[in-house]
Every structure is written in structure tokens, then in C-alpha cells.
């Protein structure tokens, strides 16, 4: 029986001809979880979702929904429902007919269909639109119809395939909040496929980052952002600076790398690394400190002299590109904590500066 997992993928492979779209993916999605699959287009996330829904069958591996093997079950008999990328609302049916389609297929009595329609429409705040045709609705409203049409069936798992990608920026932000609170209210497991990292970070309990058919990392938004396990994840989620070099010292959870030009930086290592291996230090721009002078007691490893090259004011932050002594550039974001028009309060190109990276704020990655 169920072991607290709504979905379990066991070593799933999916090939389309010569192309391996999904490459040995295993993951477990817990009951009631808001789980996101995040990755660039073509990474296999949508194919995974389609296999869970039953539109594609895996070339090998197993798909379990609440402990039941799904391999031989066609989509219309699976206890999951999907919200499609551009909604796939039936254009020849009214909103109400769209929403009740699933219940009708289950041959539920008319009276029950009526009550559940009412509840579903209220849930997505679409009361009064029942008799409209889909194309008479705005994008956001169509989105809600698609949600209601899926949720009314009380699926064990709701699959969402980039459901917000067709909406404009503002509506998108609203819908993110709404989806999240909706999921908390109905308590159904959501699997959310997106290529938008901000969307995934905002809404998810856990995220699986995928690339080229493989799952690279699974974790909470904080884990994914603060402790990426490889350069791809560090680069794909948020922004970061990479400095490549060789490991010259390690001790405890930290390691020091040295660039070919002799610059040294220290950072946290999720996994032990041995001296002499090539590694990449990743440090996010908002975690680098920049100052006009070097503190006398500063750690020489992690404090580097630099020259300000470009300054971009973006309101909340100032984004500064600095050039180090070996011509390498780093991005540094400084929060604008003071409200002033005084030019001297901001960095100017050409100024000399010191940047410092504390080991806790940097990661040494070997993959």
C-alpha cells in the first residue's frame, strides 16, 4: 500500500527513436506536496509529466501512483488530472460542460454533478461564467476553468504543465499566489512543470531540477538556491559568479581553490574534495561584499583588490561589475539601503575597491 508517496518514478527511461528524452529518472513525490519539475526546454520534464498522466508510456521503468503500478493503465483510468499548457479547453462546450466533463465520464448522478460544479466554480471564483464559451473568457479566466475542470474530479495528483506561461507578467504573479493557496486548501498533491525558476522557488515545497533527461538535484527551494550540488543548478537557479581553479587545501566542510593566476578563495563543500582536483567556486552576486578599503584583520583568502568597471542602478539594488587583478570580472549586487540622490553614495566606474567572499557564502563544486 501507500508509503506516504503520491508518486514514485523508478528508473524511468523514455526514448523517442534515437533521442533519450528521459534518462533513468527516479524520484518520490510525497502526499500533499507542491512539487515542481524545473529545467530548460527539452530537459524531459514535460515528458515525465505526460508519462505520469499516461499520454506516453516509458521505454523502461515503473510509475507508481499511491503504490499502484501504472504501466498498463490508460490515461482515462488514472487517478490524476492535468492542467494543460494552453488549457486545452473544449471550444464547443460551455464552461460548465467543460468543468463537468470528467464527472459525466464517470456517470455520476446529475444532482451530484450540479453540487460539485457549484463548489468547483466557487473554488476558482468563476461563479456566473458557467454558460460562457471558453473563447469568451480572458486568459486568466480560462486558466481557472482548466483548474476547476481538473480539480472537480478530486484527483489524487494534479499535474500542471507550464500552466502560467501564457499569462502576462502581472497576472502570472497573482496566479502563483492563488495556485499556492488553492493547493493548501484542497490538500491535493500538485506536480508543477515549469522553466521559470522564480515561479518554482515561490510556489514549491520541493523542486527537482532537470537537464538533458536527468534529475540533477531534488530539494526545497532554499536547498536548491543555497546549496546547489553542481554548476548547472547553481547557474540555472538565480545568478552566480563562477571562479575555476585547483583545490589546494581542504579541511572540514571547507576547501580553498587557487586560480591559475594565483587568486585564492575559500568556500563550503557539500562533498569532500581532494587536493589537486579541478573545482569551481560559485558565489552569488548578492553575497559578495564590496568596500573602499581593506579591513586590517581581513582574511587574505577571500579578500581581493578590484576595480569598478560598470555600475547599473536598478532601484532596489545597484549592480556592480568589478575587474580583478587577473582581468576576470565578477558581478556584485549591493542593496540600496539609503535613500539619497548624492552621487557619492554610489560606486563610480574606475574606482578602486576591495571585494570579500566569506567561505560560508561560497560553494566549491566539482561537477
Amino acid at each position, binding site marked *: 500500500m501507500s508509503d506516504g508517496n503520491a508518486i514514485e518514478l523508478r528508473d524511468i527511461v523514455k526514448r523517442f527513436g534515437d533521442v533519450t528524452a528521459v534518462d533513468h529518472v527516479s524520484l518520490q513525490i510525497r502526499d500533499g506536496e507542491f512539487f515542481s519539475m524545473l529545467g530548460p526546454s527539452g530537459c524531459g520534464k514535460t515528458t515525465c509529466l505526460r508519462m505520469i498522466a499516461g499520454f506516453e*508510456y516509458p521505454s523502461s521503468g*515503473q510509475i507508481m501512483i499511491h503504490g499502484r503500478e501504472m*504501466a498498463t493503465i490508460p490515461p482515462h483510468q488514472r487517478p490524476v488530472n492535468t492542467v494543460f499548457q494552453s488549457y486545452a479547453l473544449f471550444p464547443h462546450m460551455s464552461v460548465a460542460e467543460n468543468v463537468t466533463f470528467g464527472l459525466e465520464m464517470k456517470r455520476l448522478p446529475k444532482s451530484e454533478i450540479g453540487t460539485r460544479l457549484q463548489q468547483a466554480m466557487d473554488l476558482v471564483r468563476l461563479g456566473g461564467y458557467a454558460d460562457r464559451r471558453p473563447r469568451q473568457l480572458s486568459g486568466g479566466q480560462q486558466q481557472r476553468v482548466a483548474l476547476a475542470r481538473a480539480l472537480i474530479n478530486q484527483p489524487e495528483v494534479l499535474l500542471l504543465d507550464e500552466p502560467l506561461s501564457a499569462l502576462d507578467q502581472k497576472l502570472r504573479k497573482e496566479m502563483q499566489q492563488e495556485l499556492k493557496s488553492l493547493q493548501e486548501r484542497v490538500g491535493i498533491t500538485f506536480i508543477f512543470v515549469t522553466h521559470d525558476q522564480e515561479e518554482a522557488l515561490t510556489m514549491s515545497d520541493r523542486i527537482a531540477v532537470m537537464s538533458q533527461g536527468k534529475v540533477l538535484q531534488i530539494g526545497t527551494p532554499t536547498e536548491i538556491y543555497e546549496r546547489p550540488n553542481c554548476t548547472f543548478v547553481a547557474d540555472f537557479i538565480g545568478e552566480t559568479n563562477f571562479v575555476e581553479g585547483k583545490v589546494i587545501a581542504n579541511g572540514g566542510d571547507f576547501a580553498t581553490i587557487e586560480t591559475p593566476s594565483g587568486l585564492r578563495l575559500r568556500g563550503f563543500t557539500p562533498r569532500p574534495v581532494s587536493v589537486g582536483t579541478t573545482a569551481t567556486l560559485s558565489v552569488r552576486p548578492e553575497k559578495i561584499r564590496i568596500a573602499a578599503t581593506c579591513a586590517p584583520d581581513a582574511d587574505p583568502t577571500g579578500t581581493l583588490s578590484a576595480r569598478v568597471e560598470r555600475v547599473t542602478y536598478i532601484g532596489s539594488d545597484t549592480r556592480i561589475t568589478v575587474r580583478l587583478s587577473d582581468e576576470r570580472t565578477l558581478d556584485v549586487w549591493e542593496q540600496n539601503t539609503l535613500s539619497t540622490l548624492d552621487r557619492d553614495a554610489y560606486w563610480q566606474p574606475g574606482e578602486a575597491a576591495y571585494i570579500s567572499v566569506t567561505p560560508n557564502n561560497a560553494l566549491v563544486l566539482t561537477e
Partner: protein
Amino acid sequence: MAPQPLADELKRRDRTRLAGLLSPGLFYLLVFFALPLVIILLYSFLTNGPRGNVVWQFTLGNYIDLFTRSIYVNAYVRSIVISVQTTLICLLLGYPLALFIARSPQAWRVPLLILILIPFWTNFLVRIYAWQIILANNGLINNALSAVGIGPMGLLYTEGATLLGLVYGELPFMVLPLYAALDRFDFNLMEAAADLGANRRQAFMRVMLPMTMPGIAAGSVLVFVPTIGQFVVSELLGGAKVDYIGNLLQRLFLRSNPPNWPLGSAMAVIMMAVLLGLILLYFRSTTEEDR
């Protein structure tokens, strides 16, 4: 592993479904379309009996006749010439008209198009017949002419009347595909060409014409094919004074006493071969950039 038999099962189910959908129509076309073509191919190598019956005796005589006797060669040449003329005239007349419809305001386009569709859907015979009323010796034009004292002119039963009738009859078949191509054409490209220094003629030749070539090809085929086999227009408006392939075919199969089906079959086979060859050539040369 479990999924392999599943995949096989799915493939098997798909195959059954495909067979169910495809076989009725395919079977019908094989029996009632492909097989008859094979039969005339076969007949074209058989001998005609004295009473117009088909004698099962192999001969190349039918083909030799068709390629050597001037009555047949002339009919072929005449049919091809008038088909080319009709196609070209329809293209020259139809292109500006299709352009006009495509450039009309959105609200006008549907009615303008329906005005093309009505003759398209109207019985061809009826539309050809209408010209008899106009061109006949006691017809509309000659009546008007005699009213101003010019004697009746022989308008009907001329080759000119045949060509006129064919152009009139086939024009809608040219305009519709041309319109479809021009409707898809992005007219901003003409401005882009002008911006890059092309004059109107250059922009047309280098941008619009190549991009609407699929429509030209489709329209030309739709006009050329029925024209090469026609016999009604040359009979009703041309007075059957000269023979086109269509007239000969009709005579050999239905009218002659005795009929000569093997010769007629050979004639049809050559017509089909020439036509398919031309069409293949035409499409190969015109639709490349569309792919």
C-alpha cells in the same frame, strides 16, 4: 521488463485501428479507380474486333497509330496548345483578381470570394451554354449588331469561341488557389523589398511571385487537367469543327459504329502519362521553396 509487451500490445491495437480506418476507402479506390486504370492499360495493347468487341490478341498497333496518323497527332497537339493557352490566360486574368480580393478590406473579402465560389460550384455545362445565347447567329451580340446595321458575324462555332468558353469556365478554378496563396502572403514583405531598394516590378518578381508559386502551380493544374480532356466546350461553342482528344475519346468509346476501345484506351493512357509527367515536372520546379 514489463513495458516491452505493453508497447507491443499498443502497437498491435494501433495497427488494428489503422486497418479499420484505412481499408474501406483504400479498398474502394483500388477496385473502382486503380483497377479500371490497369484495365485500360491492358486494353490499349489488345486488338479491336470487327464488331467493336475487344479481341484478346496483343498488339502495339494502337500506339503506332496514335503516333503516326496525323488525325491523332494533331488532336494531341491541339489539345495541349489550347490547354496551355487557357492556363496562361486564366493565370494572367486571375492573378490580379486574386490580388484584388486579398487586398480588400476584411469585411469585403467573404462576399467577393463567394462571388467566385458561385460559378465554381455552378454546373459547367450550364455556364458554357450561356455563351451560346450570347454568341449565336441570332444571339445577343449579333442582334445588337444588326440593330446598328452590321450583318451577323460568325461568332459561335469558332476556335476563338472555344478558347473563350474554356477561359470563362476555368477561371474560378485558377482564382481560388491563387487567392489562398495571396491571403497567406505577408504584404509587409513588399515594403521590406521597397525599403531595400527594389522597384515595384523587382519586388513583385523577386518576392511576391516566388512566394505565391504554390498557388500558381495548384491553379494551373486545376485548369490544365480538365481542359486537356474537354470535349463539351469544343462541341457546344466550337461546333466540333476540329477534333481534340476529348472528342476523339468520346467518339471511339460511345459514338463510333463500331467503337474502338483498345485505340481509345491507348489514347487515354498516353494522355494520362503526358499529364502526370507534366504535373510532376511542374511541381518539382515550383514547390521546392515551399517545403
